[in-house]
């Protein structure tokens, strides 16, 4: 036994353990890895967005200098894979269905040789008419994107039929009858373009075989899903596939799901050499089956003069693109967001996820939510105008609160929706006098927490430090890097005493990955459970050594000591010293989904129940140049109920980044498809991300409430909600300046200018009662009974 100098907790924020390697440039991302003897991979993509493949001739390419292998569908198992619908192959076989479909892959000594050989592969096609217009693909008699859809393995609840990949409804009461009783009925039609996750790191993969097993270093957000995908596509046992993620340079959803790991593993097997793939920026735009879905959003709301929402009808059409990927649940998620966090007495929402020959849609930060929320929140401002209510007042009367019943019969308990509204209004100075080219817009939104199994080990080291071993994935959010805060509290140690070993399928327990804002929620729970097991071991050893009752002991400042007798203690370092084995494991029990009464809903895929919902209100103060349509966000306020906040610097960072991503989606970010479904702007010059000069000051406030079903220490998710209401808040602010809503997203200068020209601005700055929208086929309007 010895005295232990109590470590002092340093003041200020918790510095992420991976920070030093990131600021010094010494940390390795996937593209930074090199294996001795490695070859370089290049893909041959579809030459037409929609075409039948007649013949693939690789002879010329194979004979080119430096080429070691050329693979097509004939060289890998004939296996389909996907998420809820198994509709894709590694290499296109009968058809190509979008410009990023992979037809062949090459491994060669240099990247240049690989690209030249890929271009030299001869592919003969029968060109088919592109089916880029996803709404038109619903029309009867439209040729199918997947002729064999009925033979695919798929989740029966998707409700697939022909070009419809998924159909979900949310039904509550009798919306038709209730609509007829409403004092005011407002209708709106909104169209949102596709957009991108656009991480700054283009993806990279390095695969190397040893014996009959392969190790794949990949820039994926979901190493375990990538492992499953490789195992399925190459017909290997999962135990022979190891996926390791070096530092990951962001993802925002775009690196979720299994993508190109199996192509590279197959090339490495064929060449018996390590093979490396590094995407160009153009490929990062075009080739992943992962972008944010374009949507058509039609809304109708009936309200009473006193501001009750008596009915909502909605029809949503989502561009699913060429393949399902992991976006199969989108119709139901979008339907939930067409209801929003409001008390609506009767609901009838239908959402359709439709195949097209565009890039496939899959999860990008809060999939389906920002677009749907943008439409709904502008629509609600029109409802407020028709009722002569301030938009904030309408929301105050209709937002869900404790005890409210949602659209699927879920009863919400302990949520802070209205508190976020009040906080955002206060932060932005709502109601203050502004110049006539400036205005404030608000929007509210929600997002569920996701429960998942997750696991962790905590081992104590002989020097009194500890190591957290987890399967979780650090994509940059800081979620994994903040796990030491949770373990340290359990063990009475300092956070900086912990190292973290993560994102390796061979060492860590299975984990869902960096997806669904769920790492702290689920892996945090696992780490606390693992640390608690070690704590028990420490208490047992200390009780033995100190000859005291275990119940009298506490762990503080790196020592186990008797409560009230500070001299009687032993350090953790001594207890964990040489020859000792102190290991805890844990997973914890995921909270269960709250009960619902959704018997009238179809296409149920689990989104009907919002576990520990996160509530958000955003307020945007914008300035609009009426002569040019240019919008500038001057200031932004974000109030979030994400439960208890564990690591403030990390949580704030999610809001700053998510809001700016949302402003980008609001004003400048869109993937523009030409009529054939090719991307017109697959580069960062024409796909404009917000810059440091564009970014407004953002005020953040957390409404910390203990919600049932929450994660560790009362936390909910944090990563996705900051993107949800941002475009809606910006849209409502623009409408207050120009006098009408811009019903096309993004709200580019051209679109804002056209909307501003369309009609005279009412003197009160409120949206007019008129109809029609200057730009294209989207409209908002209303009928007052």
């Amino acid at each position, binding site marked *: 036994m010895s005295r232990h100098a109590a470590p002092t907790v340093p003041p200020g924020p918790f510095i992420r353990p991976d920070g030093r390697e*990131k600021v*010094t*440039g010494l*940390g390795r991302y996937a593209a930074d890895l090199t294996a001795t003897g490695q070859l370089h991979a290049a893909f041959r993509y579809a030459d037409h967005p929609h075409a039948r493949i007649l013949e693939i001739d690789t002879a010329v390419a194979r004979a080119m200098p430096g080429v070691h292998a050329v693979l097509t569908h004939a060289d890998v198992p004939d296996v389909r894979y996907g998420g809820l619908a198994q509709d894709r192959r590694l290499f296109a076989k009968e058809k190509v269905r979008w410009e990023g479909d992979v037809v062949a892959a090459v491994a060669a000594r240099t990247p240049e040789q690989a690209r030249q050989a890929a271009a030299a592969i001869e592919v003969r096609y029968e060109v088919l008419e592109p089916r880029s217009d996803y709404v038109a693909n619903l029309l009867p008699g439209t040729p199918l994107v997947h002729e064999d859809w009925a033979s695919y393995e798929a989740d029966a609840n998707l409700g697939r039929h022909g070009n419809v990949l998924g159909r979900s409804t949310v039904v509550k009461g009798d919306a038709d009858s209730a609509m007829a009783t409403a004092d005011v009925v407002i209708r709106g039609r909104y169209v949102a373009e596709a957009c991108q996750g656009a991480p700054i790191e283009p993806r990279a993969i390095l695969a190397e075989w040893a014996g009959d097993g392969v190790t794949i270093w990949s820039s994926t957000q979901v190493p375990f899903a990538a492992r499953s995908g490789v195992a399925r596509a190459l017909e290997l046992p999962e135990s022979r596939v190891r996926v390791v993620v070096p530092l990951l340079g962001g993802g925002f959803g775009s690196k979720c799901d299994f993508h190109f790991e199996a192509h590279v593993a197959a090339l490495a097997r064929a060449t018996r050499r390590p093979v490396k793939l590094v995407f160009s920026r153009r490929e990062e735009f075009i080739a992943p089956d992962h972008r944010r879905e374009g949507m058509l959003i039609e809304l109708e709301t009936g309200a009473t003069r006193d501001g009750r929402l008596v009915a909502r009808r909605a029809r949503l059409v989502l561009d699913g693109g060429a393949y399902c990927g992991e976006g199969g649940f989108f119709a139901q998620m979008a339907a939930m967001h067409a209801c929003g966090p409001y008390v609506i007495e009767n609901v009838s929402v239908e959402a359709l996820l439709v195949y097209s020959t565009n890039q496939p849609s899959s999860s990008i930060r809060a999939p389906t939510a920002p677009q749907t929320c943008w439409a709904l929140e502008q629509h609600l401002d029109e409802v407020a105008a028709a009722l002569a209510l301030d938009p904030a007042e309408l929301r105050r009367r209709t937002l869900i609160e404790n005890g409210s019943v949602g659209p699927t019969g879920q009863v919400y308990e302990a949520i802070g929706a209205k508190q976020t509204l009040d906080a955002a209004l206060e932060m932005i100075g709502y109601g203050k006098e502004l110049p006539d080219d400036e205005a404030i817009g608000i929007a509210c939104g929600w997002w569920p927490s996701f429960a998942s199994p997750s696991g962790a080990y905590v081992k104590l080291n002989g020097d009194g430090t500890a190591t957290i071993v987890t399967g979780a994935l650090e994509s940059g959010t800081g979620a994994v890097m903040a796990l030491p805060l949770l373990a340290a509290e359990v063990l009475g140690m300092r956070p900086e005493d912990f190292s973290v070993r993560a994102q390796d399928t061979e060492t860590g327990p299975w984990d869902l990955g960096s997806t669904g804002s769920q790492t702290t929620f689920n892996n945090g729970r696992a780490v606390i459970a693992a640390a608690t097991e070690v704590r028990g071991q420490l208490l047992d050893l200390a009780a033995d050594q100190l000859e005291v009752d275990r119940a009298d002991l506490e762990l503080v400042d790196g020592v186990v000591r008797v409560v009230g007798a500070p001299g009687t203690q032993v350090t953790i370092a001594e207890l964990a010293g040489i020859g000792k084995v102190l290991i805890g494991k844990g997973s914890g029990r995921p909270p269960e989904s709250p009960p619902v009464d959704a018997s009238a809903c179809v296409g149920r895929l689990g989104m009907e129940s919002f576990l520990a919902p996160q509530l958000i209100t955003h307020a945007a103060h914008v300035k609009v140049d009426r002569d040019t349509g240019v919008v500038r966000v001057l200031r932004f306020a974000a109030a979030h109920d994400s439960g208890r906040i564990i690591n403030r610097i990390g949580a704030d*960072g999610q809001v700053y980044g998510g809001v700016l991503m949302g402003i980008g989606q609001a004003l400048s970010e869109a993937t523009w498809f030409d009529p054939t479904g090719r991307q017109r702007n697959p580069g960062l010059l024409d796909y404009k991300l917000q810059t440091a000069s564009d970014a407004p000051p953002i005020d953040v406030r957390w409404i910390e409430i203990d919600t049932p079903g929450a994660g560790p220490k009362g936390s909910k998710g944090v990563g996705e909600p900051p993107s949800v209401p941002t475009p809606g808040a910006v849209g409502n602010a623009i409408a207050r300046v120009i006098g009408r809503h811009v019903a096309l997203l993004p709200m580019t200068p051209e679109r804002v200018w056209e909307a501003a020209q369309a009609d005279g601005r009412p003197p009160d700055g409120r949206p007019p009662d008129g109809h029609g929208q200057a730009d294209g086929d989207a409209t908002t309007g209303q009928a007052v009974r």
Partner: protein
Amino acid sequence: MRHPITLTINGQVYPLEVDPHRSLLHAVRDDAGLTGTKEGCDDSECGACMVLVDGRPTNSCSYLAVQADGTSITTVEGLADDAGLSALQQAFLDHGGVQCGFCTPGMLVSATALLRRSPHPTTDEIRVALSGNLCRCTGYDGIVKAVAAVAGEAAATAET
């Protein structure tokens, strides 16, 4: 045909032989083996490849290695010294200016160049100086605060 060139990178002399089309970025990453400098777009749009060429911030993806012959290059690996992290590197960590970290090397190089030519920039000057470096994680908030904090310290030091 390959050309012999000499680059002095972070004070170390690298005699290299490069193809005429070799970018400075690939010479630094693949020939000199310094992978801290990142490739985000290969088109001068994202700034992840920013290095100092004789003190001038330069997108190394769009600069030929042969053009850089005889110059002195500073990469992110050259910002810390034996005493530890530079004030900017530490400030990036303290203010939440680092998330995924992929833009961080270029961002630090641009910020270093800014503070060398203008030790006391306003917040607007910081934002403009960093507008050639894209970040998708942080909303630039922590980054701008970090640079402002170091500039403030520089101001305080200069006054004393």
